[in-house]
């Protein structure tokens, strides 16, 4: 899932600025599961904003609504009727959600209420950790299902570096060394020989380094010319 974290109320207030009528838009998918921007959080942020601006002496009209998925235009249509009555949308979706709103409603000002952090999973109650960096050319088959691109601090393909100690990465004792994990897993599966090959430099073109990415599936397109 996409994991995000709420911005501070101070920053949110700065982003909202002088806008009077605010619509907080939550999202029912990833950010609901990571407790950052679901219906519950949207209601709380709306209440905080109302209360805080009231205390500041310039109360704002704040309402909230949560759509099932902010990152698909068709789910955004349900908020269209409300747009005439608001000055600004505070999106509690991930960065994709915010942009989906901006693209779908060109005449509406939208600001982000979350910091989108990473693609990852909950490792225990209240803890989420990064797992994939969307490099566009998955090499998990070479590394026992543990991603060195997202989980090694240096994205090494021929790790571990000299900083690996007691299972953690040199940058922080709270971060596991991905290469120790890879080594242990391949070892336990009797597949250490995989690590004896030198992995060639990665083609980063499939990653963000190749420019913004796009996938076109002709087989699925609706505007395909009929024969």
């Amino acid at each position, binding site marked *: 899932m996409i994991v995000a974290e709420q911005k501070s109320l101070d920053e949110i207030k700065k982003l909202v600025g002088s806008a009077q009528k605010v619509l907080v838009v939550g999202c029912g998918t990833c950010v609901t599961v990571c407790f950052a921007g679901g219906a519950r959080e949207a209601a709380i942020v709306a209440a905080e904003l109302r209360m805080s601006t009231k205390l500041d002496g310039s109360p704002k009209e704040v309402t909230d609504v949560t759509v099932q998925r902010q990152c698909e235009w068709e789910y955004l249509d349900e908020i269209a009727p409300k747009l005439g009555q608001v000055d600004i949308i505070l999106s509690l979706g991930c960065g994709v959600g915010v942009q989906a709103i901006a693209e779908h409603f060109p005449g509406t000002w939208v600001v982000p209420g979350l910091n989108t952090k990473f693609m990852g999973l909950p490792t225990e109650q209240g803890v989420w950790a990064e797992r994939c960096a969307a490099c566009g050319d998955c090499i998990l088959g070479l590394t026992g299902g543990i991603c060195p691109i997202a989980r090694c601090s*240096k994205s090494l393909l*021929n*790790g*571990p570096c*000299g*900083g690996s100690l007691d*299972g953690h990465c*040199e940058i922080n004792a709270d971060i596991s060394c991905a290469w*120790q994990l890879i080594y242990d897993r391949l070892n336990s599966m009797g597949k250490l020989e995989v690590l004896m090959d*030198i992995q060639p430099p990665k083609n980063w073109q499939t990653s963000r380094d190749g420019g913004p990415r796009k996938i076109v599936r002709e087989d699925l397109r609706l505007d395909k010319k009929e024969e």
Partner: protein
Amino acid sequence: MSDTNGYHSGSNLERILRAGHFAVTAELGPPQNADGEVIRKKAQLLKGYCDAANLTDNQTAIVRMSSIGAGTILVQEGLEPVIQMVCRDRNRLAMQSDLLGAYALGIRNLLCLTGDHQTFGNHPTAKNVFDIDSMQMVQMVTGMRDKRVFQCGEEFKGQEPRFFVGAVESPFAHPIDFRPHRLGKKVKAGASFIQTQLVFDIEAFKKFMDKVCSLGIHEQVYLLAGIGPLKSPTMAKYMRDNVPGILIPNEMIKRMEKAGEPWAGKSKDELTAEDKKARTAAWQDEGIKICIELIQQMRKIKGVSGVHIMAIEWEKAVKPLVEGAGLYPRPVVPDASTVSAQPA
């Protein structure tokens, strides 16, 4: 291709090692400013006492004079440089172009490293590169040298950059069982020499070397064991507890403490400036003594072709270390160009 008489680069370091001498390299830390005099002064401390001097590349992710810039000054000073290059700060384009420049400036030895993460240094908010890793860098630079191809596979004409290429290994970093194999991978990638992380625990290092030798790696590479003098018991404990892959036996720490014993009874405020100076000198003497013993033990270990002295910000220590270990004067091996060409 230029005539290299069978050498990769014909550098002094390569000639010394090829001739079977026990080699000595020493680390020289470039300054955090643009003052070339600093390099010249440090060069004078090392000249004659090592076969080549390593110039670190933004070590611990702190901005310093570039290793190529500082290395060029060493060339002018007549002390052979080994320039270090890390993967943190340059992508494959920048690495290759800088290395073409470094060769043109007369630099002949290159050490390829991953590099410390930037969170350690003075620009923790920087974006890192890590486009390729150290193993891939070794492949890239030996490809440029031996096949005259850039990393992309494109051939080039004219002078190829001919470096004597080295890599590093940290024998006691984790997972420990994998370290000899990782060293083997670096050799397979094309490294001709290896410099290790600081070694203090000779017994543990012997085990590592046994494994390296049993894999036959010592026959394909020159391994220079990393050694360095301890400055104080506090520094020793700090390194032991905070630097990954550094093991310091307790007896060694006790010896350092013992050296400072005459002053141990006094509290911080009771110690005069004289006392502190004398204590520092006593610690340093002991640190150098321990280090000389380490070098002597290293010379007896199968597969060890030399030592790499890391006297960090203490280049003065190199002279007494090399002299004390009986490694002075340094041997002279005639330049490749003065040796008659070997049949191909």
